[in-house]
């Protein structure tokens, strides 16, 4: 490699209060290279690319772009150099049109007079068709990502940064995306591809830099490595994977029939005619692309939101008209997706947060008065049993790391020994060791006779722990089947809204 690297990073360091997000990171990207940045959640990948894109500035270290010193003070400078970025959490505006969104993400002088036409041409050339006049709020998650990508492509990028792009896509959409990226790379555009998904990186990337705890711990050619060797580099230790237990035919604990709910949010997803049962000892895994009604389904099941139609039964009793408190009394606990602000109140202490969902089942409330001692005792038990790292139960929920707060919330629900547990994204943003702990706890709970519904976007997780499996798409649930009986292609079709291989598409 004698040519000048397109981007060279040397000794990049970024500190946040209490943590060093990046510690002396150095690597380089060649022109036309598809370069993977691999690491676990919290390894410092996102921070690093934000510095390349000018959202943040490093505390130490320097960067060179095509040999010249490069230190963008703001994203428009990065864009002027030909650096484009597709964010993990999209930087899009729901109430604005596709064209307006594209214009906002481009530098002023790059916006041509005929933007709508340009959008149509570029999006079709790369196989990502888009209608420039539609509102973002009315697009699917996959289409939204197209907007982000087309926005970058219109500026003729020399380096395209993709932050975890496939977590929101169906397997088929992933294939289309990879085609687009390979085409770009063959045209000489470099791609910095951030992911923790090993198979993807092996399929797409020419080179990989592995981050762990903010440091570069290795670099390799991913095509020469196995998924296992990459995983060990990323995690730094070998892990015991949970083994799915065989499906046991216990009594039917949770029965849902014809459940429907219209969303209040103009851009929300309606739940349409959902039916399933979960038996004692069963873990029903529900897969699906983000934004297909997962949150809505959970809220309707737990009673946070009223259903318009349908029946929900726990152990034979119809609870469809009851609120969350009464459902908890009858044995249903839940873990929402958002930790801060939904599963826990950010500025309340851990013991106060046990009052939020455990006061009924754990006897912390009598005639309206709260038993603060009982709350403290229960919080202490949860912290001890689930190995929550915190300076004490008097500290506010916000002060915990994401993984530790997740352990606390999951622990708080599991230790109420529910008979039915609805859990969304059980290990989102949790490190691998803690994820394994949570998985084991769920399996233990199921073994004790509880019925568990796990809704997750992580297929690997569902394959590992669920005994039966279904897919949610556009607010509709596929027929649950035994885990392991569907091929990845079939799952992909279901996630795209195609049901029962009849070829009927849920949306055009």
């Amino acid at each position, binding site marked *: 490699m004698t040519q000048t690297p397109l981007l060279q990073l040397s000794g990049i360091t970024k500190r946040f209060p209490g943590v060093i997000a990046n510690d002396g990171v150095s690597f380089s990207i060649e022109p036309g290279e598809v370069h993977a940045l691999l690491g676990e959640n919290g390894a410092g990948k996102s921070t690093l690319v934000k510095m390349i894109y000018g959202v943040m500035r490093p505390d130490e270290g320097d960067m060179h772009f095509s040999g010249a010193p490069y230190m963008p003070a703001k994203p428009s400078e990065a864009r002027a150099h030909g650096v484009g970025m597709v*964010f993990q959490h999209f*930087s899009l505006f729901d109430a*604005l049109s596709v064209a307006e969104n594209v*214009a*906002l993400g481009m530098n002023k002088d790059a916006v041509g007079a005929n933007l709508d036409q340009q959008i149509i041409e570029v999006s079709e050339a790369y196989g990502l068709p888009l209608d420039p006049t539609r509102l973002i709020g009315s697009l699917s998650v996959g289409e939204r990502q197209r907007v982000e990508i087309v926005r970058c492509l219109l500026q003729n990028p020399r380096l395209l940064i993709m932050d975890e792009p496939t977590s929101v896509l169906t397997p088929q959409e992933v294939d289309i995306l990879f085609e687009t990226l390979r085409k770009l790379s063959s045209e000489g555009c470099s791609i910095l591809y951030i992911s923790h998904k090993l198979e993807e990186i092996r399929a797409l990337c020419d080179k990989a830099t592995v981050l762990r705890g903010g440091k570069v711990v290795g670099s390799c050619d991913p095509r020469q490595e196995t998924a296992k060797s990459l995983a060990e580099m990323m995690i730094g230790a070998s892990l015991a994977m949970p083994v799915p237990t065989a499906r046991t035919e216990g009594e039917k604990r949770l029965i849902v029939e014809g459940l429907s709910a219209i969303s209040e949010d*103009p851009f929300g997803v309606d739940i349409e005619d959902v039916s399933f049962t979960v038996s004692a000892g069963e873990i029903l895994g529900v897969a699906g692309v983000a934004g297909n009604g997962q949150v809505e389904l959970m809220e309707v099941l737990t009673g946070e939101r009223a259903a318009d139609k349908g029946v929900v039964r726990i152990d034979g009793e119809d609870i469809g008209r009851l609120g969350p408190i009464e459902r908890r009394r009858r044995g249903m606990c839940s873990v929402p997706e958002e930790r801060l602000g939904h599963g826990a109140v950010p500025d309340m202490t851990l013991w106060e947060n046990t009052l939020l969902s455990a006061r009924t089942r754990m006897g912390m409330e009598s005639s309206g008065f709260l038993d603060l001692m009982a709350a403290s005792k229960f919080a202490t038990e949860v912290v001890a049993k689930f190995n929550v790292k915190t300076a004490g139960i008097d500290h506010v929920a916000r002060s915990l790391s994401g993984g530790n707060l997740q352990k606390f919330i999951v622990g708080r629900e599991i230790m109420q020994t529910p008979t039915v547990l609805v859990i969304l994204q059980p290990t989102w943003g949790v490190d691998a060791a803690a994820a394994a702990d949570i998985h084991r706890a769920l399996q233990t709970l199921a073994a004790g006779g509880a019925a568990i519904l796990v809704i997750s976007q992580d297929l690997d997780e569902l394959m590992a722990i669920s005994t039966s499996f279904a897919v949610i798409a556009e607010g509709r649930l596929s027929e649950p089947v035994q885990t392991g009986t569907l091929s990845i292609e079939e799952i992909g079709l279901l996630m795209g809204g195609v049901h029962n291989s009849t070829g009927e598409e849920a949306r055009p």
Partner: protein
Amino acid sequence: MDLAILIIQGIIVAATPLVFASAGELVVERAGVLNLGVEGMMILGAVAGFSVTLETGSYVFGVFAAAIAGAIAGLLFGFLTQMLMSNQVATGLALTIFGLGLSALWGQAYSGDSTDPLAKLHIPLLSDIPIIGPLLFSHDPLVYLSFALVAGIAWFLFKTRAGLILRSVGENHDAAHAIGYSVVGVRMAAIAFGGACAGIGGAYLSMVQTPLWVEDMTAGRGWIALAIVVFASWRPGRALLGAYLFGGVTVVQLHIQGFGVDIDAQYLSMLPYLVTILVLVVISYDKTRVNLNAPACLGKPFFASS
């Protein structure tokens, strides 16, 4: 016919301060900021406009002073909410309370004084046309400015890149920040602009409507302006309509007794407030529509973590 013309002219005079204040607040809210201090900014504008006009004899200076006073008051709110991250609702209330107090202190020396109201324009020929002349061509310059302001805001918000950026900041400040726009900068500018508009609206009260200074002379108009923004679904043209609707109610109420209806004046004075409530109810009823029109980040604090 003369009475009708008189009533319409009255409506224009009653509506114009509301047009200024609500148009300014509309821009602020489009940027995602809820400034409940409109009443305070208006009353400061009223006292500034009146006192400067009285001292200098120049209406132009008076209007500028009102705009500057309103903008400074707005920037104070902006400094607290955008830079020191204070609660927007509480800070807006503080601005109103502070504005009422400070204006009373400032205006004490001027109570009892009065000026001539700002002169109406007289355009040769046009103003003399019967009916159309008095209706369209013989108002004071601020009335024409208020219409130009609404048109200018509509053009700015929906036809310019800067307006698009402002709307994007109100819609999703995190995304706007990630793309590289200065959320705080855009919001401070919007807040200052909104303050200036509210200041001019207040000055219209003390320089045209009743050309003298009275404590608390805004009498809730700042709050009505806030209601108009909701009524308008954050669209400038509808804000103009809303302001004229309220102006109409105010003036008609004054004339009802003239028509020989026997009813206590206080009951009639309640009308504008009751109409405000009624309109709020009708507009807010469709929750989905309000959610669709309201800037998604309205009133939410923004703190850039980087």
